């Protein structure tokens, strides 16, 4: 058994995975995405020495590109390129959730500023504007009134790239100063945390505090279904608690960060990830 971990930088998560591999005596290589050069018409034989490649690159675009190349060369990767592509894009995630009837905040899409204002006012203030790509709570805007809407849209139209001219308008959920981050590995929600913050953005990257969230049958069922509709794998599901409608799936992350979630939950997340990868490799061998 030999695994490769694709990285851009070695963060706490990658160190935990490397430590777990070392403790389990699993041969592994750490591959820096910055050092890669692919000749697309000549599959590089060196990738065949790995039973699986676990993508941990911090750059979503680089990671997806590598996954596409490796999959086309027949290399087993985690998560798959299709899953990663869906999760990297909030529009694709929302569409997948809606197709499966999974509860999610109401979302509108517009391209023109005037139509975006119309959409915002259809939902009613406040609303949340998000870039369709991006992470860590960056560039989210809670729009409380028309003045703010016009200002943010002018900034996006003037300063943003073409991706910021795709306006993803989400209803604001009056969540209880927290959201839920649930970790799904295969067909099981292995643990979950509450992310609590006085700020309306509740990413731990933005200072939210993690505490254990019990995995109820309802949460487990919802999160496993959500993971399956984007293709399944090793996924972090962000869930909002709506006072009227209950649990709503907000986003799904394909390259999950978990450093703050091991202590409050008591779950060995990196080893659970490796168990899933190794079982996938073993199933392939038995086929």
């Amino acid at each position, binding site marked *: 058994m030999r695994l490769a971990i694709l990285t851009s930088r*070695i963060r706490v998560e990658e160190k935990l995975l490397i430590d777990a591999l070392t403790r389990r005596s699993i041969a592994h290589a750490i591959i820096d995405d910055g050092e890669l050069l692919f000749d697309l018409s000549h599959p590089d034989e060196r990738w065949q020495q790995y039973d699986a490649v676990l993508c941990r690159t911090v750059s979503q675009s680089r990671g997806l590109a590598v996954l596409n190349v490796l999959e086309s060369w027949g290399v087993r990767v985690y998560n798959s390129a299709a899953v990663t592509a869906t999760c990297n894009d909030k529009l694709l995630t929302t569409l997948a959730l809606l197709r499966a009837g999974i509860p999610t905040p109401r979302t509108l899409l517009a391209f023109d500023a005037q139509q975006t204002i119309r959409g915002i006012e259809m939902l009613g203030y406040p609303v949340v504007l998000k870039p369709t790509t991006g992470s860590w709570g960056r560039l989210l805007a809670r729009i409380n009134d028309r003045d703010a809407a016009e200002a943010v849209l002018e900034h996006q139209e003037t300063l943003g790239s073409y991706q910021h001219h795709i306006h993803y308008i989400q209803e604001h959920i009056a969540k209880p100063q927290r959201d839920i981050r649930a970790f799904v590995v295969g067909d099981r929600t292995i643990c979950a945390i509450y992310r609590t913050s006085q700020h309306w953005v509740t990413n731990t990257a933005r200072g939210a505090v993690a505490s254990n969230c019990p995995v109820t049958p309802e949460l487990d069922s919802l999160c496993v279904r959500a993971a399956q509709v984007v293709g399944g794998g090793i996924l972090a599901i962000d869930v909002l608690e709506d006072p009227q409608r209950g649990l709503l799936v907000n986003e799904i992350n394909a390259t999950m960060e978990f450093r703050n979630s091991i202590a409050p939950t008591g779950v060995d997340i990196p080893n659970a990830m490796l168990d899933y990868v190794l079982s996938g490799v073993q199933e392939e061998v038995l086929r």
Partner: protein
Amino acid sequence: MANCPECEAEITIQGLIVGEIIYCPDCNAELEVLHLEPPAVALAPEVEEDWGE
């Protein structure tokens, strides 16, 4: 021992991994371990728009 490119503080990189992100104990600059032998660190790259989970 490596030196911080920002403040020239001495940085111990024993037990670290190439690519690991550390903070300078003197100036708190975010640094990336480039080599273990000879020891070398550089300022870590700035966060880019597509970075994340």
